């Protein structure tokens, strides 16, 4: 059986919108190999870079925040980004667990 383990993140997104913030939803839409969070996991980001929720175990969130701020600045509706396995010896964003994920960004408008 499956429980929804809903994190009320959309409710929080709505609160942010009501507080006149610009909000981007970032959702895990595909995973390959061992990924930290399952498809449907979500975080929200505002124009200041505040964020809530997660799309990984902290591995790629900083890059997602940057991309989301970019999306708001460029006033684009949506974008798909992919993250692959990281090189542990380099300071780069990636998934140390060896998996790959695709994250979909969309502005609430």
């Amino acid at each position, binding site marked *: 059986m499956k*429980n929804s383990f809903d994190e009320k993140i959309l409710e929080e997104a709505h609160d942010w919108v009501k507080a006149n913030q610009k909000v981007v939803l970032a959702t895990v*839409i595909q995973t390959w190999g061992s990924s930290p969070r399952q498809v449907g996991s979500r975080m929200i980001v505002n124009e200041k870079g505040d964020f809530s929720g997660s799309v990984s175990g902290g591995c790629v969130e900083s890059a997602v925040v940057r991309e989301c701020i970019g999306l708001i600045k460029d006033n684009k*509706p*949506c974008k*798909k980004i992919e993250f692959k396995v990281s090189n542990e010896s380099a300071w780069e964003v990636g998934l140390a667990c060896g998996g790959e994920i695709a994250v979909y960004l*969309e502005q*609430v408008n």
Partner: protein
Amino acid sequence: MKLQTLKSIIEKKKNKSEFAIITNLKTGESEIFEKDKPLSKEMEVYSNQINEFFKSKKNGVIENSEIFVETYILPIKVIIVGAVHIAQYLVDFAKSLNFEISIIDPRGYFASEQRFPDMKIINKWPDEAFKEIDTNENTALIALTHDPKIDDPALQHALKKKFYYIGALGSKKTHENRCQRLKEAGFSDEQIKSIHGPIGIKLGGRSAPEIALSIIAQLVSETYKK
């Protein structure tokens, strides 16, 4: 996503309906899918695949397309009998785990609004209380009073309705006596064995939050076994 779509998703979740969000990843346009309701023309061609995701309660991108399906299912119903100290911690854990809790306790001084703010509390004896809750094999029961007058009727209801998880608080001795009473009431050994008693996984702690943690851990584990 349009703000209007976001608002209706939140509304539907509040109203406890099951639905899916269908997003065209190319355009960012999304719509809400509900069983037996027509899809937009654009999404109609994917109707079979969307229904498949919805039925299996899965999220994902439809193969060879740019369509993402995200399903929203109802939280699992958990009925707690006994508005005791442990129940207060269970309510806290259940919030982040998204179980939908109802508390039954005929003793008004336990089941008070002040002890359980914003909770559905049924201030009646179990036989009466269960008339107000729709239960089935996807429901769980946590019996915490260890008072046979209150726990036993609830356990009997749960066994008859084949709840997927039934747990009862009490020592080994209390549980033995409980099993004996259920046997005398006509329940089979197999049915009685399905009750988790003494309730919870072995953590070692004996404080109320620790017992609540051990119960909720067992509940989550049993949820995934089913």
